[in-house]
């Protein structure tokens, strides 16, 4: 019961997409289609609205205590900045979950309040880290996941790279995938402590103006050090970071082109690595 890829009109996926009944590959392909088809985006909007109506009628009183917990938690959670006008994405449908493949022109997060070069930004970090710690746990438990992810990864990189292959093939390879968040959703990290390397396959990062770059950081008990810059969509899609013995976390910030010696903006993404 398989349809050969390409033989059907992607448009027919609008219903399944609005019902959230598509897998990740379908989603990416369809969102790519949406970005080029205003009519489809309009249809999806109406269908998503319809689905929401189907959900709303199921309203049920949440348990007592939820309100207090939510209110307490938001006090700890940093809010995301707005998208700048001119964004051509389809945020209303999927942007919030950070899953949109082509989120563009998102304002760089530099200059966020409370962030100074070299200092740890506040509030939202612990939450991001906690969420990712859960992801680590899942990854550590599900060893088999590495093989599946490997294939996925190989499809996405433009040229096979021996270092990457070594990390992926290492017996202690663990994979972590960022499952939510406004930025970096779908980003895949494969870590091998024995190889002292990790591979990052960025995903869900917005395009940047010419004078900005994404920069990755090794973070941990020791000081934060640069792990190189990258511009998604240009050149290799997978990045190798070595020398990770002292690294407990990997962070991604937006920096002026060429990179900075220390982070100068709030990290978009902080990944907890499995311990050595």
């Amino acid at each position, binding site marked *: *019961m*398989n*349809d050969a890829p390409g033989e*059907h009109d992607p448009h*027919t*996926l609008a*219903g*399944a997409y*609005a*019902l*959230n*009944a*598509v*897998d990740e590959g379908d989603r990416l392909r369809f969102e790519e289609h949406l970005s080029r088809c205003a009519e489809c985006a*309009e249809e999806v*909007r*109406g*269908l*998503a*609205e*319809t*689905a*929401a*109506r*189907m*959900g*709303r*009628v*199921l*309203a049920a*009183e*949440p*348990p007592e205590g*939820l*309100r207090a*917990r*939510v*209110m307490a*938690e*938001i*006090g700890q*959670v*940093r*809010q*995301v*900045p*707005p*998208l700048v006008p001119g964004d051509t994405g*389809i*945020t*209303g*449908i*999927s942007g*919030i*979950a950070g899953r949109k493949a082509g989120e563009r022109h998102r304002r760089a997060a530099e200059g966020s309040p409370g962030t100074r070069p070299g200092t740890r930004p506040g509030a*939202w970090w612990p939450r991001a880290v906690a969420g990712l710690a859960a992801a680590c746990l*899942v990854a550590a438990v599900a060893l088999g996941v590495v093989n599946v992810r490997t294939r996925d990864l190989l499809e996405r990189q433009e040229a096979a790279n021996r270092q990457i292959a070594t990390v992926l093939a290492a017996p202690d390879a663990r994979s972590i995938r960022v*499952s*939510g968040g*406004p930025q970096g959703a779908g980003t895949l990290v494969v870590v091998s402590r024995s190889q002292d390397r990790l591979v990052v396959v960025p995903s869900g990062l917005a395009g940047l103006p010419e004078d900005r770059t994404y920069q990755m950081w090794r973070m941990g008990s020791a000081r934060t050090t640069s792990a190189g810059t990258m511009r998604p969509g240009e050149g290799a899609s997978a990045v190798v970071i070595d020398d990770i013995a002292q690294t407990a976390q990997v962070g991604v910030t937006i920096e002026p082109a060429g990179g900075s010696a220390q982070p100068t903006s709030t990290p978009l993404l902080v990944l907890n690595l499995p311990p050595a």
Partner: protein
Amino acid sequence: MGSERVPGPGRDHRGDHEDHGGLKELLGRVARGDQAAFERVYHLAAAPVYGLILRVLRDRAQAEEVAQEVLVEVWRGAARFDPARGTAMAWVMTIAHRRAIDRVRSAQAGTDREERAARLQVDRPYDEVAESVERSLEQERLRRCLGGLTELQRESVTFAYYGGYSYREVAEFLKVPLATVKTRMRDGLIRMRDCLGVER
């Protein structure tokens, strides 16, 4: 947005239906860090969010956990809500449904696939809606609209939305080609849209 007016009982009710008690304006304020506005958002959105998640997950403890994540996400991402792209309630419900589905699919890791397929056989979300004793007008309308779909359209749409199944799973279960399920989901939703009078 931009208005500082506090929406609430007693204000004009024009547009309330689409605006859900000023949710749109409230989100604008929430985006600027207004916790009081968020309390109102909670008041308007928590029950629909929790109800939908509960329906998909069928487990109160998990539903509560996911509902908390979703409501916090509404706070965190309020600035990303764009009224030009849909109503505030749809935005919130989309997040809720996505998170519920993520939870279902992450728990699904292969082994309980069969169990899930078996559950699909006893899952009759439409009947559940249909047989609900106390029905609001809105529920009544939804029931009527679902009743206007063909059986395959209805099963495709409800299994996916209320059951959390992907169209591939639905196709497998109903033993129909993928292309058919995709088409039925789309046609079914379009009919629902027109029947419910969703603005386009």
